[in-house]
């Protein structure tokens, strides 16, 4: 077991190195020069241009720049943002709770609806329930998030007036940050209380819906197929033959065994949550890391992009590794 876990962890090293190379190179392949973007038409002064290039270290060779970046990262220094001139790590940590809060809501939404939908579709296989749920799932999976987010805003905020359009909380509340998770901070704040919590929650609903739709569709599909497999097993027939109530058979006997592949999928979905965050946060003005990365790409803020991408990728890879390790623990057959 320990050996298998160690092997998994050692595997992380080349993966993370690969990510760092990609993050470093990709942004440099995109046309556009961060200094020109900072200076605008005023880049006309070659002396100022050269000076800024030198202070940013962009006059060195690519190889030199990469190794400086790498050795700094290994020492925990992700560099300074060109735009805000603050440490990339601080900037990341400032924004991560917002994405985390949104991600947790979106996943909660995906799991609490996706699993029951999958079960219903499996149990009522080839009926109108199955077809409509799986049809809706396919639509949900194929919908562009940008369009879907705007549709949600137009229907629920503009036409019905049920939810706010964007932002994290009503402008009336000034919430002091402790955890960065507004649902918690709003309770703790002297300015906040229940009303502030409600406001934060109502701001979360639409972005969580938009971000959770694709995971919801995936979870529902996965649950369905996994359930169908299990429902065909002999022990289910045995359980039914014993005369146990059907609901009990489905929930206790079938679902428990069907959960293993679903949990794997949940680990993988963490990655898609981050991708979803980039689009969702742009639409809903959500101050998380997705919006931060987009702004930084537009400004060609190299340190933020390379540092931010490495941090995000590490998180995703780490989560998947943890899921893998859990898997080993849960399933002795895979330890070989």
């Amino acid at each position, binding site marked *: 077991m320990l050996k298998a876990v160690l092997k998994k962890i050692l595997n992380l090293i080349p993966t993370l190195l690969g990510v760092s190379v990609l993050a470093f190179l990709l942004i440099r392949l995109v046309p556009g020069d961060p200094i020109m973007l900072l200076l*605008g038409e005023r880049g006309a002064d070659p002396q100022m241009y050269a000076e800024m290039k030198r202070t940013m270290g962009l006059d060195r060779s690519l190889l030199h720049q990469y190794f400086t970046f790498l050795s700094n990262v290994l020492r925990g220094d992700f560099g300074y943002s060109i735009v805000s001139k603050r440490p990339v790590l601080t900037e990341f940590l400032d924004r991560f709770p917002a994405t985390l809060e949104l991600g947790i809501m979106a996943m909660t939404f995906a799991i609490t609806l996706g699993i029951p939908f999958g079960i219903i579709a499996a149990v009522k296989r080839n009926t109108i329930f199955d077809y409509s749920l799986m049809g809706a799932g396919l639509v949900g999976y194929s919908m562009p998030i940008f369009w879907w987010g705007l549709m949600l805003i137009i229907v629920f905020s503009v036409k019905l007036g049920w939810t*706010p359009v964007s932002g994290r909380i009503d402008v009336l509340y000034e919430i002091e940050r402790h955890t960065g998770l507004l649902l918690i901070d709003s309770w703790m704040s002297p300015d906040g209380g229940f009303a502030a919590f409600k406001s934060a929650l109502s701001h979360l609903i639409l972005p969580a819906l938009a971000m959770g739709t694709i995971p919801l569709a995936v979870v529902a599909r996965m649950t369905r197929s996994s359930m169908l497999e299990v429902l065909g097993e002999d022990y289910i027939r045995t359980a039914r033959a014993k005369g146990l109530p059907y609901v009990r058979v489905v929930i206790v006997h079938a679902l428990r065994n069907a959960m293993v592949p679903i949990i794997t999928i949940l680990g993988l979905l963490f990655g898609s949550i981050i991708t979803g965050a980039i689009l969702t946060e742009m*639409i809903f003005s959500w101050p998380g890391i997705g919006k931060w990365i987009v702004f930084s790409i537009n400004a060609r803020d190299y340190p933020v992009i390379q540092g931010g991408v490495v941090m995000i990728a590490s998180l995703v890879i780490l989560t998947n590794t943890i899921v893998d390790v859990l898997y080993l623990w849960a399933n002795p057959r895979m330890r070989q």
Partner: protein
Amino acid sequence: MKLGQLLFSLILLIVSSGAHAGTTFVYCSEGSPTSFNPQITTDGTSNNASGHPIYNRLVEFKYGTTEIVPALAESWTVSPDGKTYTFKLRHGVKFGTTKYFTPTREFNADDVLFSVERQKDPSNAYHSVGGGNYEYFKAMEVDSLINTVKKIDSYTVEFKLNKPESPFIANLAMSFMSILSKEYADKLLKENKKEDIDNFPVGTGPFIFRSYEKDTMVRFEANPTYWQGAPKIDKLVFAITPDANVRYQKLKTGECHLIIEPAPADINSMRKDSNLKVMESAGLNVGYLAFNVKKKPYDNLDVRRAIYHALNRASYINAIYMGNAMIAKNPLPPTIWGYNDKAVDYDFNIEKAKALLAKAGFPNGFDAEIWTLPVTRPYNPNGKKMGEMMQADLAKVGIKVKLITYDWPTYLAKSRNGEHQMIQLGWTGDNGDPDNFLNVLLGCSGMTAGSNVAQWCQKDFNQKIVKAKTISDQAARTKLYIQAQEIFHDRTPWVPVAHAMIYRAMSNKVQGYKIDPLGGDIFREVYLQ
């Protein structure tokens, strides 16, 4: 549905009961400010959140115009040689009291000296704070222009310049010349928290900084002791909303009172909405096609005029700017003083163009190159498409155009070397002074600096703009700039294409807002009906 409504009204009830008293004005901005000190930023987003609400300058632009009016300086005099400016400072101006600083004295000459010296003097304790790059201060050449700044008494400050330069006063009205509190700076220095000066600002402006939640909102409160009278709104919130479509939806639901840069496609439907109003104004910019007059056949005036007549600029306004621009007839935008409104634009006329080409000795046209702008700019949103339209227009008079482009730094570098024949470029003004357009873009000195891409050094034109730069009487300057524009119009070193419009959409309740021709959003006179 009923449950949803019930829940919603419950939320509304709770939310409204928790509301604070007073009016809150919500402005939906497009991005996050990088700093709250206009000395170290050059972007409009940061300026809107710092220079305008928090600070004042010695002189300022009259709201909604490019005209200079007294502000922290009550009056000023210029010595006959144009090199000494003496400012009489306003008495009784208080710096705002914030959570983190309570001023004990009023604004005086020490604050002016500190604000200039931080930028100019590398030995100033604050010079290297925030990166130490005072880009605007250098780019507008204020650093090399100011020789000394001296405190005559607590309410008199004297600037000695290295040469007479009348646009200096317009530069003083720009946000990078905002006045910071010396007392606050000294306090931070003592506490070893120098960096705070740019993140927790203290100024004399109409609003007091309250807080900034990163990428979410900036909060201000009205400054009750503002020297021009407290603003009519109690709280000002910048809700950072990067997507133009979402800003529009927020405007519709009343979550914003005013939005920056509505999407061009939405402007018509906004105009039809009886709850909203749209304001527009020509921006402080110009997009143009410059001829390299050093190259043949563009040295020939008839060829330049022929091309001017052959380009159907009205069609570009529709296709490229989506109608959100006006045809330019001068190098200056109409919102700037000194604009030559009497100029009669060259009409779109293929026959005239053909005749002029024949007269110049090119009855069958010639082969030409146009460089197309590689970046999106307000003054030219799509250089490539505009190039294709120009290509089609010129083909009609026999000029066969090849379109060329490079990445942006190369494009600028090569154009500075004069490697082009015809080139698309543009300019967004800084200080609302005609010199900032005419001298930078068309003066002989701009040729060596590289900003005069037409490589056009016209003696009589240059004389007028150089002279206008050294005298401080605005009426006399206006006259000279109009004459200069007449010469430009006659000699056509460029085809001025367009001035992009600025749009702001707002709720019907918003009163007192004026579009700032310099591109800022200013709320000190705004209120809600």
